């Protein structure tokens, strides 16, 4: 009987400990970042399923940009995440922006090829060679890669900061 009682107590203690350790998911510093990535992916999933228009996408991108700005102002995301996320939104908008007069073509092409080169390493020649829907496919692939890169960036943010702190301490400690 006494052993059973002690067993129950131990189980309860373990459960209580688990409850105490249970948190609301990711740390507050990265929670908004994950939410922004989820919002982007979820939006495109919905648009791909239900169909979309330029106006619908414009509204969604505007919402994402506003949320990202609010999160940055509130200190919920850092500048690295904010600028890379903003670039994703900008590139997305550039791809679908109507440019009947072709006035913006040099600017759009330059931005898209720079983005491709930075994310997937593909050069401008490959982009121009592909052309049309294939070129759009290359940009879409780079956007998807960047979303995953940002997710992994958030996943490892705590570890990076811990390692940098450790390195800073080592550097600041005088050698005996």
């Amino acid at each position: 009987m006494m052993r059973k009682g002690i067993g129950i107590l131990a189980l309860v203690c373990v459960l209580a400990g688990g409850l105490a350790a249970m948190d609301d998911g990711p740390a507050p510093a990265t929670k908004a970042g994950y939410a922004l990535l989820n919002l982007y992916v979820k939006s495109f999933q919905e648009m791909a399923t239900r169909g979309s228009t330029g106006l619908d996408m414009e509204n969604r991108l505007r919402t994402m940009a506003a949320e990202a700005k609010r999160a940055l102002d509130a200190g919920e995301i850092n500048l690295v995440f904010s600028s890379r996320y903003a670039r994703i939104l900008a590139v997305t908008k550039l791809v679908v922006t109507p440019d009947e007069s072709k006035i913006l073509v040099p600017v759009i092409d330059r931005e898209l090829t720079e983005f491709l080169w930075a994310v997937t390493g593909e050069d401008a020649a490959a982009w121009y060679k592909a052309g049309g829907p294939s070129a759009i496919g290359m940009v879409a692939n780079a956007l998807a890669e960047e979303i995953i890169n940002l997710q992994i960036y958030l996943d490892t943010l705590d570890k990076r900061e811990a390692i940098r702190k450790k390195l800073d301490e080592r550097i600041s400690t005088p050698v005996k």
Partner: protein
Amino acid sequence: MNDEHRDPEFEPIARLIREEEEAALAVFRRRDFGRRVMARLEESKQGKRGRFRLWKILVPTTAALFLIAAGAVLLLHRARISDSGGATRSFISVLQDLPGLAELASRRDSAPGREEDIQNIPQSIRDGLAMAGRQKANEEENVPPPKRALDVPRLSLEKKMAVLFKDRAIERVLVSVREKSKEV
């Protein structure tokens, strides 16, 4: 005693020994040493049984209390996640459901003149009721904010990759929207 010890010189010593022996036996019988030892043993056994009984009660009670506490923590935790004002509302609703307090509240609402009834309620409960009332009023004043855009379901890395690379959602949407904009 043996005959060899019937020495006249030994006789006084033997007598002294006998007297001491008889005195010791008398004391032993008078104090009933055996019965006292048994009684002490019995007391000791009963004490152990009593302690064992105490453990039998204490252990399940403590375990039950821990379980209740863990359950309460879990409920509060969930309430906090799902709705920041949920715990307060639950507390208010529990207070309002208590028969005595509900009756008191209805009396106070319907008959404000019955102050003597309220005066009979302990001060701590009146304070609690007043505080709960104030919190409820505050919550009613503060209209819950509209659902934010960031309140989207969480997607795992695997799910994201499936949407992005397997379904090619971005590519499909970009191509579709570009074509629609050309048509326009």
